[in-house]
Structures are given as C-alpha cells and as structure tokens.
C-alpha cells in the first residue's frame, strides 16, 4: 500500500494492484481502522483495461493511501462490509458496467438513457425500493421543483405523514465533465472546474489547481495562497449565511430569512470586489491567482467583512434564540454519529453529528494558516446542530479572513506552469463550504490528463439525507434537505 502526502505526486504504477478479494479486505480494514474512502473509481490503464482505484484518507496522520485492482467484469462488492462504497460502486456499475457482486441495491445513481438502445424512459421511471402494504402511498417529488433549485427526483414511501423510506434519483444535471477532461489541460479545463458545482467555484478550482501544482511541483507564493484562502472563506461565509437564511425562510421565519438573503449578497459582492465575479470565477489559475488585493482594497474588504459579519451574527442570534425556531429545529432530522462515520459523510453535515472532520485542519494547504480553534462540531446531527455548526463556522471563517487581510504576505501572484510531467498522479483535498472536494488526476505518457476524477462533497452526503428521512415526517423533508443543501450538478457532473 502506497502512502503519500496531499501535496505530493506519485507515479500511477506505484499504486499496488491487488486481487479483488484482497483489495476488498484491505479497503474494509483500513476504513474500520479510521480511514475514509475519499474516492473510489474506475480508470483506464495504459493497456486500455479498466482498473479500480480506491483513495483512502487518514485524517489523523494527514496522509493518503491508494489501492487498485483489476476487476474484469465483476468483483465482490465492498458495500456490505463498507457502506461508504455504496454510491461509488453504483457509479462504477453505471458508467463502466463492472458489476459489484452482492451489492444490495445495484442500480444507476443517475437517470440516463437505456443502455440497450431501447426507447428513452420517462424521467425518474426506474425501480424504486417499495414498501408493501395497501395503506402505503408514494410521493414523487421532482424532478421539477417549485423553488429555484436544481432538478432531482425524490421518491418517498409514506404512511400518511410518516416517511418510511426515501430514495433519491439524480442525474438531470449530468454534463459529462469527467469524460471531457482527458487529453487536457486545455483552455476549457479551468472553466469546467469553475462550474463543476456553481456555488463551490473556489473549492473545485483550488482543488484542480492544487492537483496540477502537485504534479508539476510548483508551489504558489504565500500571497497567492492567502488570496485563495480569503476567496474560499468568503465563499463559505456567503453560502452558510444563505443557508441559514433559507432555513429560516423554509420555516417562515421572516426576519432572519430576509436579512440573511441580503447579507449573502454582501459576501458575494466582496468576492466580486476581489476578482470582478460574485462567485469567484476567473480568480484562481494553476500557479497562483490572477487578481491581487491591494492595501486599500484589503481595508475596504476588512471593513465590509466586519460590518456584514456583525449583521449576520445579529440575524442568526435572533433565529437560533427564538424559541419557535428552536422548536422547529430541535430533534428534527437527526442522524446518529455512527451513521455519519459509517456512511463517510463530510462537511458541516458530518460535523453536526459530532464527527471532527475538516480538511482545513487535517490537510492544510501550504502557506495557509490554520483557522483558530478546532473544527466546529455539533451534537445529535439534527437541524439545530447543522444550523449551529454553520453559525460557528461563520465566526471562524470571518476571523480567518480578517487575519489574512490584515497581514497579507508578499510574493508573485501567478507562477508560470511548466508542462505536466508524464505518468504522474496527484490527489487534492479542499474543504469547501459544503465539505471535502477531492480531485484525482493522472497524466499519460505525454503529460496530458490520462483520466480525471472529481468527487464533490454532495456525492458522499446524498445518502445521508435519505437516512435522515427514514421514519420522520414528510413535512420535515424540505428543512432537512435545506440543512444539507447538497449540490445536484456537483453530484451529476
């Protein structure tokens, strides 16, 4: 088993290829001992065969491990002994047709055309897990939603108000990004990355650049890294504020929802002040950043961050201390910590359950200071905990941004990127606002992308949402969904 650090690269051949059975046991053992399966995918070998790669992350030791196996047409499924692999295995099955034997729920995770070339089925028509009984009814929500959100289909098995089971069918946002990346990097690549998940531009772009920089052995200047960190935290601030506002809106708590709606815009405008784009597009490029923060702009940003965070604090306090809002939040949509660990949840959703898991601390980027304190965690994993974690993260992010703005290091903005070396591979992990973004890149014999794997935090967390809903109220679903606030396009890619 090969082990390396997140900023390093390695050769693809360094990854040991085990037999399917050994591979399965090795991954399961590592996960049992505290590793996380951050990526599990199939990729072509030089010979043209398909090989399975598992990337394991050891948060405590800040190191990564990788394993591989050659499955042929099928292999024994990991899911029964390692539920984290569940979604990955279904994806592998869907994209490559490699069957994980004994997988309990083997079906595509994305809605797609029929493989046998038959007539295209109607959206969301597939086999869902059915709870039998004459009194059970199904509720089919989506793919079109009444709000301005992305498409996705939710199939509830209900008895009256109680949800017995929820199954989620996605794929309406599938753009084939991963399939278009091999052969790169080219001029489109960075734009694919900036729009992989529209609200996580900074997370994905940084992860992409970090992976390329690791392969090329380029180390961006501290100033560029600081500007990246500022933009990432601003993205976090904007989205967390927006999420809290949306949570308030969904329970009809108007004061906070209207305040947070405006304040989210203020944070986005701060990003725009840095790079001219409210979502931070065009700011980060391999080798550094494109736009600088001059001292006067830093002062302006500092002023804005301080006032906005003060307002956010007020609005959120109003929300979290209102007993009516707390009544709605407490004990709703709870997820036990052992489920969060076993399912490999990431981001605020995992931290709200009490899992200490934040890549900013575990896998810090070079020259980026650690945020103050420890990762924010909650208890019980209910709506309140997820809201509280966000409120705390707003504080830590604001403090970090202030600190960085006050003492911006010096250095060139953008270093030139050399041509990528051949046959190298790198993994980057960035704690975006929604959770861990993981990019796995490998180059071919000419230094172009041989394959490229993107794992959005939503990919880990969608199944957590279905677990939260089992046995709860169907009327709680919108709030639970909002409290996870997962990405559809980030999942579908």
């Amino acid at each position, binding site marked *: 088993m090969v082990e390396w650090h997140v900023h390093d690269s390695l050769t693809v051949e360094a990854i040991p290829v085990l037999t399917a059975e050994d591979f399965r046991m090795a991954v399961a053992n590592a996960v049992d001992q505290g590793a996380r399966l951050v990526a599990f995918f199939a990729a072509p070998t030089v010979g043209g065969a398909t090989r399975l790669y598992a990337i394991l992350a050891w948060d405590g030791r800040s190191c990564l491990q990788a394993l591989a196996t050659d499955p042929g047409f099928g292999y024994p499924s990991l899911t029964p002994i390692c539920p984290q692999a569940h979604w990955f295995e279904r994806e592998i099955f869907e994209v490559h047709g490699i069957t994980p034997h004994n997988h309990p729920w083997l079906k595509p995770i994305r809605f797609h055309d029929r493989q046998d070339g038959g007539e295209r089925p109607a959206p969301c028509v597939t086999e869902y897990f059915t709870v039998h009984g004459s009194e059970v009814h199904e509720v089919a929500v989506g793919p079109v939603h009444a709000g301005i959100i992305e498409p996705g289909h939710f199939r509830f098995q209900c008895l009256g108000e109680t949800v017995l089971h929820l199954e989620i069918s996605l794929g309406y946002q599938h753009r084939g990004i991963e399939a278009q990346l091999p052969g790169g990097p080219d001029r489109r690549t960075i734009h694919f990355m900036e729009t992989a998940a529209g609200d996580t531009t900074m997370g994905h772009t940084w992860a992409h650049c970090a992976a390329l920089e690791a392969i090329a052995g380029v180390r961006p200047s501290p100033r560029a890294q600081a500007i990246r960190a500022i933009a990432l935290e601003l993205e976090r601030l904007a989205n967390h504020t927006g999420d809290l506002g949306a949570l308030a809106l969904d329970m009809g708590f108007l004061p906070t929802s209207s305040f947070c709606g405006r304040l989210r815009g203020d944070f986005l405008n701060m990003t725009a002040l840095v790079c001219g784009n409210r979502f931070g597009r065009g700011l980060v490029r391999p080798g550094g950043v494109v736009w600088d923060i001059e001292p006067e702009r830093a002062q302006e940003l500092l002023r804005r961050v301080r006032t906005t965070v003060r307002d956010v604090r007020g609005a959120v306090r109003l929300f979290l201390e209102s*007993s009516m809002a*707390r*009544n709605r939040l*407490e*004990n709703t949509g709870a997820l036990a910590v052992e489920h969060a660990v076993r399912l490999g949840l990431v981001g605020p959703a995992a931290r709200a359950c009490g899992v200490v898991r934040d890549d900013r601390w575990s896998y810090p980027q070079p020259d980026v200071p650690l945020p103050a304190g420890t990762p924010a965690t909650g208890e019980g994993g209910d709506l309140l905990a997820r809201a509280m974690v966000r409120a705390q993260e707003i504080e830590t992010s604001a403090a970090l941004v202030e600190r960085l703005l006050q003492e911006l290091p010096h250095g060139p903005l953008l270093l030139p990127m050399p041509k990528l070396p051949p046959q190298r591979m790198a993994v980057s992990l960035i704690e975006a606002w929604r959770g861990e973004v993981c990019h796995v890149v490998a180059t071919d014999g000419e230094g172009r992308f041989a394959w490229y794997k993107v794992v959005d935090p939503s990919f880990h967390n969608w199944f957590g949402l279905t677990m939260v809903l089992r046995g709860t109220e169907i009327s709680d679903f919108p709030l639970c969904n909002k409290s996870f606030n997962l990405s559809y396009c980030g999942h579908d890619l």
Partner: protein
Amino acid sequence: MTASTLSLACWAIILGDLILLGAGRMRHLLLLTAAQGLLLGLVTVGVSPGIEGYIVAGAVATLKGGIFPWLLWRTMRQVGTSEIVEPFMGLGTSILVGLGGLGLALWIDARLLLPIAAPPLLMPAALTTVLAGLVLIVLRHKALTQVIGYLTMENGIFLLGTPLAGHDAMWIELLILLDLLVAVFVMGIAIHHIRRTFDSIDVDRFCSLRD
C-alpha cells in the same frame, strides 16, 4: 385594589397555570413561574390591605417572582441541560388535564364552605394552581421541571391561605414561615431528584439552590 383587579389577577393566574402546562421550553416555564409569583404578591395586597399586606406581598413577590426563578435559571444555565421540557404524554394532554383540573376546582369551590368569604375567583385559582403543580411533577421527566412543579403547587397552597391571612395578622407570619419551610423542603427533595437525574454532573453546583 378593586375587586375587578383582583379577579383579573385570578384570571391571569388560572391562564398562567394552563400555559405552564402547555409550555414546551424551560425558559418559558421559568418566566411563567416568575409572573405567577408577582401575581401572588398582587393578590396578597388585594386580599389583605394595609401595611402588613404590603410587606408580605413584597416578600412574596421578591421571593417567588424574583429569587426562586432566578436561582433556577442560573442552575439551568450551569447544568447546561437542554431547553426542552420532556413530557410523558403530549403537552396537549397536559393542557386537557389542566382544563379538567379547572373544572374540578370550580366544582370544589361551589361545594366548599369557607369560614370567611373569599373573593370569588380566588379558590378556583388556588386549586387550579395546586393541580397544575401536581401535573408538572407527575407528567414531566426532568428534575428541574419537577422543582417548578413543587413551586407552583406551593404557590397554590399559599393562595389558599391568603383569605385566612386577611383575618388575622398572626396567620401571615405563620404562612411565611410555612412557606419558607416548604420551599426549603421542596428544594431538598428536588435536589435529590436532580442528583439522580444528572448523575455525572458536578453536584456542588446545586449549592446555589440552597437558601
């Protein structure tokens, strides 16, 4: 102090009891307890006017409307217990039981022959308060809620005693003494309960409850 103000205060006490039974959060319970203490003072003034009445009322209002709730509030904060009141049955059931209690109180009031004429709504208010306290003690999980239940019940007993107090000044002092006795007693029992409920928590912190 007119009779109508007194009856309004009694109305408020009865309503307070019902809201107490329907309250889902500790801080509401404490606020209600405090309000009830203040109302108790008001009623005391109404029933036994004169300087003694004012003194007793002041003592009652400070003790029951201020000190006790504040102590409990502090304890709650220190223990860091969750804000949610944990009822055995739904809060709706508790309200229904409270309504039944009010009915019972009115029924008893119609049949009770008191030695002295009490203001019209006083007895029902007192009995309802006692019953509400009982419900809080019986139908709630948390030790702190039970303490509030004891307090409420004791408020009711105090109310029962007020018309007697108007007659004879001696009664007042006796009542206050009894009151304090009951309060300390109640706290003692309650702390015992708390100790059992929160085994892991530092028991010393409960010293703040002692009077």
